[in-house]
């Protein structure tokens, strides 16, 4: 049924910290590994060892550069997976009823037995979160690892999405945004979590935590990386190093 639920009991989703993400792509690989070997059709690769490999991924990391006037440029690693939108346009456009949003936790899923592979839902998603699998001819998307988070056959600490469990920097946080006291709600409130492309009115559940402001190293926009540290060392050199420093100056 592709009508959207008017409200969901929980709003499970991710808070992604762009301050801590180091762009290692570990979440990309762990997502692919978990989702190719568990629920639904595998995530195929075409021409995997050839000249132009193409594959299905549910999570990808883009890297951007931010440059403000008179500030050094800054790198922004930007992981992107389904944001489990409350007003998910991908669900309402689906003609077969394969796409749906769960009432209990708000997860947006594709029932692969019903999908006809028309690709319309991928057109409707502003974020590029849906990819048609070239081998299976059906639509794949992030499941919020629905087959992990409720799975009593795996150890309790593993009952979070694969990407969250894997991230070595702890940049991906999983929780319930409907509960104002949850880890993700509090994180998002503290750090000013943002929605992506709010003007599309998809009301995404996932939130992105902007990078913290960087210390202004120089103030004049010029940056000389080794100098400040070398100078500081020279000035404070004491004992044997201080003596050596002075002796060397004299020669």
């Amino acid at each position, binding site marked *: 049924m592709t009508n959207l639920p008017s409200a969901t009991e929980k709003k499970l989703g991710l808070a992604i910290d762009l301050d801590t993400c180091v762009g290692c792509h570990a979440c990309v690989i762990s997502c692919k590994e978990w989702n190719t070997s568990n629920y639904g059709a595998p995530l195929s690769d075409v021409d995997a060892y050839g000249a132009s490999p193409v594959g299905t991924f549910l999570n990808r990391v883009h890297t951007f550069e931010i440059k403000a006037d008179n500030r050094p440029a800054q790198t922004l690693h930007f992981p992107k997976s389904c944001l489990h939108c409350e007003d998910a346009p991908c669900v309402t456009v689906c003609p077969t009823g394969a796409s749906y949003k769960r009432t209990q936790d708000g997860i947006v899923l594709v029932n692969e037995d019903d999908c006809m592979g028309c690709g319309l839902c991928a057109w409707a998603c502003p974020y590029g979160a849906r990819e048609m699998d070239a081998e299976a001819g059906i639509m794949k998307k992030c499941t919020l690892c629905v087959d992990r988070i409720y799975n009593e056959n795996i150890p309790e600490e593993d009952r979070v999405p694969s990407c969250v469990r894997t991230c070595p920097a702890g940049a991906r946080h999983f929780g319930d945004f409907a509960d104002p006291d949850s880890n993700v709600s509090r994180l998002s409130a503290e750090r000013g979590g943002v929605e992506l492309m709010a003007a*599309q009115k998809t009301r995404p559940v996932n939130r992105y935590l902007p990078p913290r402001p960087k210390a202004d190293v120089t103030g004049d926009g010029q940056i000389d990386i080794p100098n400040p540290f070398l100078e500081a060392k020279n000035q404070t050199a004491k004992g044997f190093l201080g003596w050596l420093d002075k002796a060397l100056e004299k020669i």
Partner: protein
Amino acid sequence: MYPAPSVILFTSLSGIGFGLLAWLGTGHPAVTYLTAFTFFFLAYGLAVGGLLASVFHLGNKINAFKAFSQWRSSWLSREGIMAVASLLVMAPYAIGEIFFGQQWPLFGWLGAAGAVTTVFTTSMIYTQMQTVPRWNSPLTPVLFLLYALGGGALLAGQTGVAMLLLIALGLVQALNWYLGDGAFAAAGHTLETATGMAGLGRMRLLEPPHSSPNYLMKEMVFVVGRKHVRKLRMISMVLLVLLPVLILLLAPAAHVLVGIAVLSHLAGVFVARWLFFAQAEHVVGLYYDMR
């Protein structure tokens, strides 16, 4: 957006087919026996052929019949239902004209209304896409309806009204190109809004997520042939409107020439439909620094 040949064929042919059905259903022209057969053969051929072409586009054709189920929310589902329903409702009218030499107007008018609605539902599949600002405009349905009714009138031999509709089509198409060129900027989506990082500075792509194109880029970021847009627009305008209207004006009774007018119009529709897809920019391109 990727201009898939199957989708271009489908929207062009079925649009004209349903347009022709709408004219036939309202008795323009009121034909019987063999002439009726020829007309309905053409109309059904175009409409059904177009629908079949769209099925080729599917990744998992086995589930195509399930597309009739979600009419409450999905324009694609509504289109499927309307297409089949109007073809069925029109059938008795066609049978009446072909085999009994009679018009049964109830079926004809219902079928015609259904045919027009089908074209409207097709256009709404594109119009509803907020992700493609060029399509997300009230002009899109107007355009699709003019394509169907104009081309249909041409095929139905309704010389006077065909000329008027084709001229209207030319004007609306030109307006649509003009407004469409500014639609993406007007919608206000930028890399900064796409990442939610407005206010931190200017952003640019440093490294794409992967070294070769993926499904998203192939399907939604199509930049080939953009530099020929102006030429293609001119070509399509000449084929679509100018040549057919000139022929209708100067030699409305010359069958061969009118045949050329129809073929020219059809070629113009294909070019314009190619542009409709190839020029449409999807917001996901922002993440890839490609539109």
